[in-house]
């Protein structure tokens, strides 16, 4: 037997060429897959990065304590009006601070120490308490439970995000004795992990701080010998450390290079171990308005501002877009004017959004003198911005209705207007609505035009009408992202999550509408 005769297509050379071509084919396919993979990876990376950042703002630390609302502090002249009570933030603040400070009898009473202590809670944090008392003056003189957020530096430290801190444990083998001047000495402690960490960190410009805590007491390492370790007591007594395993924390950044001092750290740790400072869900992010202090800021005003803006946008853009689409699709004669309108709409859809902001700034604010920073103006600008989107989607929906519907209506004597409004429009409406919602989703995320019409102002009051000063969610994201403090990052990410959630909801509605009303003719 012999092999079948070799044709030119089966020669070694031909097969080799075929292999090369197939490899090239495979490579090409892989490029495509890689491109798709990169795009999806970017999407996932973006969303996880933001969700991970936002997770830091899901909870925050508050001080929860019972205080007596002594009348001398809150309403010194006995008979204060609600306004005066609200204005007396200092009085409420002193009450809260002194209540906390009384837990540290050893802290001394120098001005510097008090100032240091005051930084644990920002003054404005007691404002809700002051408002509550102003509303219910009968509370004066009684004991109330208050919950005030701790300052952002303390919060970030307790969440271990900044400055970074490493926990460690000390075995029970060590012996504890009291040293001189508020210090204590540990003999033969098992501090291998601490030594290792400290060596790993090396000498920066300053040494890391090492704390040990137990119940309500905190001490800082002052001298680490071969056999002994001396700690300086910052809060509580030596007795608090006896008989319990010691937990410790190494704060890797030296004290001179961070915004929170060692004493503040000690107080915060002590208050937390006593349950006075506790971690609670960060609901104030949704219930409060903007503030210059990250721990007191919330997005309520921006959410309401966005809703008001969307209201105006929807009321203008949706009917107008649908009517325009009906005209262009059903009534427009084929002439130059309608052609011009068509080209125009396609072009408008691709005009940069910031140009619409310029239009709003000159025409609406300048010529017509509408109020700056108002949802009315923002809504109108965004309505013009999404009008092409709505029109294009609505036309597609109208085109999807088969001509037989129109012909049927006309055949039984309906006028053209009646055919469209009684028969075509109801069938096209779900499709129009999905386009409208997608347009609204785009408007909800727009930032640049709103910046130009002044909706970037700091708004501390929830807007109640479309002519009030307001801001919107994306603008809030922008302004929070431009703040310097670290604490704003998780807050900003959390607001982004809120915004994305709203967008997802709108898109889910679109998908559901499509599923329900999708119809093949």
């Amino acid at each position: 037997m012999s092999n079948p005769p070799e044709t030119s297509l089966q020669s070694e050379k031909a097969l080799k060429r075929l292999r090369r071509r197939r490899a090239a084919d495979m490579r090409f396919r892989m490029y495509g897959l890689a491109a798709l993979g990169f795009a999806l990876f970017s999407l996932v990376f973006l969303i996880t990065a933001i969700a991970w950042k936002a997770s830091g703002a899901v909870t925050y630390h508050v001080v929860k304590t019972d205080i007596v609302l002594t009348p001398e502090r809150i309403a010194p002249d006995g008979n204060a009006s609600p306004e005066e009570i609200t204005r007396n933030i200092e009085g409420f603040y002193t009450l809260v601070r002194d209540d906390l400070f009384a837990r540290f009898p050893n802290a001394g009473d120098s001005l510097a120490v008090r100032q240091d202590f005051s930084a644990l809670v920002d003054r404005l944090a007691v404002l809700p308490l002051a408002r509550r008392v102003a509303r219910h003056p009968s509370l004066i003189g009684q004991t109330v439970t208050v919950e005030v957020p701790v300052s952002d530096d303390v919060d970030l430290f307790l969440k271990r995000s900044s400055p970074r801190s490493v926990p460690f444990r000390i075995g029970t083998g060590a012996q504890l004795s009291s040293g001189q001047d508020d210090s204590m000495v540990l003999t033969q402690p098992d501090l291998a992990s601490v030594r290792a960490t400290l060596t790993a960190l090396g000498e920066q410009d300053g040494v890391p701080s090492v704390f040990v805590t137990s119940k309500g007491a905190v001490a800082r390492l002052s001298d680490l010998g071969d056999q002994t370790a001396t700690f300086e007591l910052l809060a509580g007594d030596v007795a608090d450390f006896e008989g319990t395993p010691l937990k410790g924390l190494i704060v890797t950044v030296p004290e001179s290079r961070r915004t929170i001092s060692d004493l503040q750290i000690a107080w915060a740790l002590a208050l937390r171990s006593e349950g006075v400072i506790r971690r609670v869900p960060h609901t104030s992010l949704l219930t409060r308005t903007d503030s210059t202090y990250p721990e007191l800021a919330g997005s309520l005003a921006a959410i309401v501002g966005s809703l008001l803006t969307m209201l105006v946008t929807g009321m203008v853009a949706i009917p107008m877009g649908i009517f325009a689409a009906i005209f262009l699709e059903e009534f427009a004669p084929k002439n130059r004017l309608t052609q011009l309108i068509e080209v125009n709409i396609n072009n408008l859809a691709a005009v940069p959004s910031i140009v619409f902001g310029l239009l709003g700034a000159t025409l609406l604010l300048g010529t017509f003198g509408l109020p700056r920073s108002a949802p009315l103006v923002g809504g109108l600008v965004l309505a013009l911005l999404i009008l092409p989107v709505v029109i294009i989607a609505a036309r597609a929906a109208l085109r999807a209705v088969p001509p037989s519907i129109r012909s049927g209506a006309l055949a039984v004597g309906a006028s053209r207007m009646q055919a469209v409004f009684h028969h075509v429009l109801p069938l096209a409406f779900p499709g129009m609505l999905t386009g409208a919602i997608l347009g609204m989703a785009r408007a909800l995320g727009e930032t640049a035009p709103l910046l130009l019409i002044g909706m970037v102002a700091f708004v501390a009051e929830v807007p109640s009408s479309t002519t009030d000063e307001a801001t919107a969610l994306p603008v809030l994201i922008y302004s929070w992202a431009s703040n310097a403090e670290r604490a704003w990052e998780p807050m900003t990410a959390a607001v982004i999550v809120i915004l994305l959630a709203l967008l997802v909801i709108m898109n889910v509605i679109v998908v559901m509408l499509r599923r329900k009303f999708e119809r093949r003719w």
Partner: protein
Amino acid sequence: MVQQLGQLPMGWLLTALLVFVVTTGFSVGRIRAERYLVSGGHKFHSRGNYHGYYVAMWGLLPTLLIAAVYVLFSQTAVFGLLNSELPEGFHTLSKAELQSYLEAVAGAAKTGGYAGADRIFATVTSRFLELSGSLKAATLAAMILSAIGGIAYARRKVAPDFRARLKVERGAEAFLFLCAAIAIATTVGIVASLLYESLRFFAQVPVTDFLFGTRWNAQTSAEFGALPLFFGTFMIALIAMFVAAPIGLFAAIYLSEYASVRTRRYMKPLLEMLAGIPTVVYGFFALLVIAPGVRAAALGINSLLINIGVTSEPFLAAQPTSALAAGLVMGVMVIPFVSSLSDDVINAVPQTLRDAAFAMGATKSETIKQIILPAALPGIVASMLLAVSRAIGETMIVVMAAGQRARISFDPSTDLTTITVQIVALLTGETQFDSPKTLSAFALGLVLFLVTLGFNLIALRVVQRYREKYE
């Protein structure tokens, strides 16, 4: 009395009045028509409802016009009147100061008048309330009168052989046309406002200085050479296209030629999600994640180059915000703009071309490279142009991650500024509409509008030609 009129909530009143006019007009017309019907058994051309609509239309039209004029111009009118009455001393104030004073007056008036110690302010506020009160009262009166007039006129027309339906339908069609014409009005408004403000700007700064000058210092002094901005915009868009063009194109090829129907159905919406994410989110991401990464990489390259002795100075600028960071993220953002349209045009290439290529023994990739891509080229180019136009006009990413410094540098790790960044920087905060600083933003806007318009027009034309070719 007049002062109290000044505090009328006009928004609600206008709405209520318009609703009232419409319902009244409709009932008047319909009742009149039905009376005829009941009384004499006339045969009507149009149904009663259409007579109602007709009368309502006539009532609504003049009232709506008056209301629109009021909403748009009342503030300006009251300010103008007040301004002419203000004593001499006020006219030494600059225009912007005067405007903010008047706005403060309006704000005080809105909350029910001013009760503080500033007597001049109190007087001005009460005069403001008087003026706006009379204006409001006059507007309401005019609306009511015109509504009555319109309704009365239309009511007389109601008769058995009156063709109300045709009139109403013609009115409705005119209304539909107006809605469609808003699109044109928007374009005209954009062009007119940008041109007007730009011409005012070019009256103070020569066009050539603006277009070809290399020093931009609008915030502080009067240096308006926009070339560095054009360069920054171009550079960042270029970086973005380096990311978006290959990835978008290959993704489109994979989705349209290789992927199964199932994969395609899930992947396409996922890809388009990239375009649905608000740009401020991309900006935050660029600022927080990508910019530090770019900086770290640039610093690494610097120390590497110094270590191996190529240079002794740091080679890259390694700024905290950089053109590269903004460009990369913007590239990711515009991927769907490339891929979506490319996917469409690749799909529109007739199947017969593919079949013919396969029949000749071509592999899939050869078919794509040598048959489909050349056939789809115009559409692909158009998609790239649209993506470039999107990248040039994008604002938030560059505002947050590209920087503020106007300069010409080819180092991607340096911070560049763009047209859009400068527009935002010039128009947020205190704005005075007369200073060249503010006006320059509109000149930049005009350039931006013209450039993107050019790209869009070419792209749309190409796509249209292409569609015609295969349909």
